[in-house]
């Protein structure tokens, strides 16, 4: 068990609810993943079209903690308004804060992100900022009251995995008290394992499962990879070496150093 914000969880797998072929597949994926935190979003639509009713109904049956996002926001002002609307609808103060600064990479805008985080913390939100692996930005977000950081591994939806493990390791080393969750860019279960091996507290992903040929099977693969990565971190990894070191002792090895008769 571990604590995310003030909630006790058994799973370190946070899962997105987008891009599945159907609501039924989404529900099966969530069940297979054993995820207890699901990201959700808001769209502008008139309620007379009965918009969102099926999804809303499906969500309520899952009994999971919801983590609404501010996807699509490009300024602190938009993100704050979106977060407030999300809090009213989803009845949670948790908010995955996304403020995008670049359409090509979907990289967060660090200046607007910080401004939005400051405002939302003041308004009583538990802010989960989607951020880069920049340590100074991470520290500033923590300074303004964020207890959780969600650095990207690589651009959203790219599936490229951990592009800068060094920077991510620095974040882990320098911010030991902060809950760190890799958000975005994971494509393979082994990459989730790598994140957990670095000491990250969890991973949040969506595309890697939703776009797999068999999403339910992939959800189970990520579930197991995350468990393996956490166990490896707790077990303590061996130190990397630059030279070979035989694992089998060579003392008393047969013929070791035996001189050959044809040698000069």
């Amino acid at each position, binding site marked *: 068990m571990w604590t995310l914000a003030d909630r006790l969880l058994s799973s370190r797998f946070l899962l997105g609810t987008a891009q599945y072929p159907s609501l039924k597949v989404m529900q099966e994926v969530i069940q297979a993943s054993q995820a207890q935190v699901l990201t*959700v979003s808001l769209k502008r639509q008139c309620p007379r079209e009965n918009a969102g*009713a099926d999804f809303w109904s499906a969500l309520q049956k899952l009994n999971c903690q919801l983590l609404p996002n501010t996807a699509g926001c490009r300024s602190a002002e938009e993100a704050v308004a979106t977060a407030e609307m999300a809090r009213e609808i989803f009845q949670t103060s948790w908010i995955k804060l996304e403020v995008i600064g670049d359409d090509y990479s979907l990289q967060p805008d660090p200046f607007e992100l910080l401004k939005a985080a400051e405002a939302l913390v003041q308004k009583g939100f538990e802010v989960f900022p989607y951020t880069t692996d920049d340590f100074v930005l991470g520290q500033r977000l923590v300074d303004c009251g964020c207890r959780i950081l969600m650095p990207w591994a690589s651009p959203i939806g790219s599936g490229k995995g951990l592009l800068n493990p060094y920077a991510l390791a620095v974040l882990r080393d320098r911010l030991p008290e902060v809950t760190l969750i890799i958000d975005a860019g994971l494509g393979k279960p082994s990459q989730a394992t790598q994140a957990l091996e670095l000491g990250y507290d969890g991973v949040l992903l969506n595309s890697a499962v939703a776009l797999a040929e068999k999403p339910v099977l992939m959800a189970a693969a990520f579930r197991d990879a995350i468990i393996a990565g956490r166990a490896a971190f707790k077990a303590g990894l061996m130190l990397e070496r630059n030279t070979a070191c035989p694992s089998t002792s060579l003392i008393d090895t047969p013929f070791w150093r035996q001189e050959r008769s044809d040698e000069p």
Partner: protein
Amino acid sequence: MMILLNSQPTAIPENCDLLTLLEATFSACFSTFCAVAVNRRFVARARYSQTTLRENDQVDIVVPMQGG
């Protein structure tokens, strides 16, 4: 007067408040899983009746959707 309701030009009576607009436009369909912003600022449900709309106001109504 005209407002923008989810970006669509919409005619409403003068001095119409947000609650009246929502009830008149959506009647029973308007439910608890919607939230509203006026001119990009969130308006809490409890304040709908006190929020008088003005010419060219932008009213955005959002509903839950899947997200990553």
